[in-house]
């Protein structure tokens, strides 16, 4: 068990580490190291980091069950919010640099291109989770309802993978979508497995 002091210390460290990818982007921007197509670089990089943080967030519960390190749960919210933070940067890059805030044009793109439709939908679903991430909101919603709402992440993560998959399909290059899709499948399958095992153990308690 971690003391309150240790918890806040670890939180500071995670916060600083979570900002590093963005700091790196800003630094690359000033040092002219974003390559020949800076906007593509930023779009892909922020998309990648959304996915990394989604994987990290979803691995907290399985890791906690396997190691019995219950204190891990105290860092999950920050990881989830970082996933949302990079998703916001990813979406903003798309809205700003690809469409220059022309919402009509952007919506046309969203409707017409399946991979954007899916990514956009996943982003929309993500917003209520970020909004209700505070302690106050948990209280206001009540634990049960809050938990139900936050299960949306089980939909958001696969949609994110589908978005990535369809984007890469254009270039016939599936190595990364397969890797991250595999990670997400394992993380979700573990939950399903534990749930079914629990049902078998305590059928009456349903």
């Amino acid at each position, binding site marked *: 068990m971690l003391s309150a002091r240790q918890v806040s210390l670890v939180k500071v460290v995670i916060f600083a580490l979570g900002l590093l990818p963005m700091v790196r982007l800003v630094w690359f921007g000033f040092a002219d190291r974003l*390559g*020949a*197509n*800076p*906007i*593509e670089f930023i779009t892909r990089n922020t998309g990648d980091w959304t996915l990394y943080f989604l994987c990290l967030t979803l691995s907290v519960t399985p890791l906690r069950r396997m190691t019995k390190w219950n204190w891990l749960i105290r860092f999950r919210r920050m990881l989830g919010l970082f996933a949302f933070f990079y998703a916001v940067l990813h979406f903003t890059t798309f809205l700003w*640099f*690809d469409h*220059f805030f022309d919402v009509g044009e952007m919506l046309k*793109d969203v409707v*017409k*291109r*399946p*991979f954007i439709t899916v990514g956009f939908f996943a982003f929309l679903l993500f917003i209520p989770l970020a909004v209700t991430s505070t302690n106050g909101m948990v209280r206001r919603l009540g634990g049960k309802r809050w938990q139900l709402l936050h299960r949306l992440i089980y939909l958001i993560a696969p949609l994110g993978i589908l978005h990535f998959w*369809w*984007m890469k*399909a*254009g*270039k*016939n*290059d599936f*190595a990364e979508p397969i890797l991250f899709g595999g990670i997400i499948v394992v993380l979700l399958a573990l939950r399903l497995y534990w749930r079914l095992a629990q049902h078998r153990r305590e059928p009456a308690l349903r």
Partner: protein
Amino acid sequence: MLIKRNQNGLDIPFSSEITPRAVFESRRQFVKQLAVGSIAGSALMELAAHQAFAQTAGAQKLAARVNPAYVAMDKPTAYKDVTTYNNFYEFGTDKSDPAEHSGTLKTRPWTIVIEGEIKKPMTLDIESLLRLAPLEERIYRLRCVEGWSMVIPWIGYSLSALIRKVEPTGNAKYVEFVTLADKKQMPGLRSPVLEWPYVEGLRMDEASHPLALLALGMYGEVLPNQNGAPVRVVVPWKYGFKSAKSIVKIRFTKDQPKTAWNISAPQEYGFYSNVNPDVDHPRWSQASERRIGEDGFFARKRKTLMFNGYSEVASLYTGMNLHKFF
């Protein structure tokens, strides 16, 4: 005895003597003005074109005359961007991979086998290809199917010069270009992303159009490995992937060639793949493009032009539904 030597005792120029990009670009501008205004005789033009555009240390210079008929008015893209950001799947799928992994490509000796529906099948080595027709410099726009574009000063000559030499028969309706596929030299071949070797193709009248270029160099030098050394085609009115790189075989055929991207995703990459702002790729719009290195961070993308602005090829497609034959 007077022997010109540098202080470092070698005949290698100091880095300070290598043409800085700004100077190179102002020379480009000068050459362009010469070409466009036709204010100077060809001798002067040749002089201007022969200036050293040194970019890659040790790269072989290639003398060529500017062909004023094919000088895009756009500003040429920086050499660094052209050589570090491109697709060449034989070296990996990232656009930085070709520059990083093409060092293993051996471009000398190199031969192209020319066969199929022709009267004079032959095998040409790179030296005879360099001598086959007078080398010209042409500044072309290049539009990638992914939505970005560049402007590149190529060196080469019209593919039609080669076609005439091998005397196609009446059966020759298409030309097929086959890229080298050697696992030892090309690490990307280990990945099954495309069917290897990479094959591209053109209809005979497209291949014979004077704009279709057989390129052996760019920026005053031989082609860098990552840009398709030692010999490639450049078809500026089509998306970049139609311009096959590092060619080892050219076949003249009766039937339409089965081309690499068309095999892998026929609904996304048609045989023709003419640049066309009205026909979207299923995953993204083709109405606009981002000019690499020029359109600033906060600039809107520029409108893509029909046939990439090369309207002189429109007559090749009269009566064809370009939405169907995309």
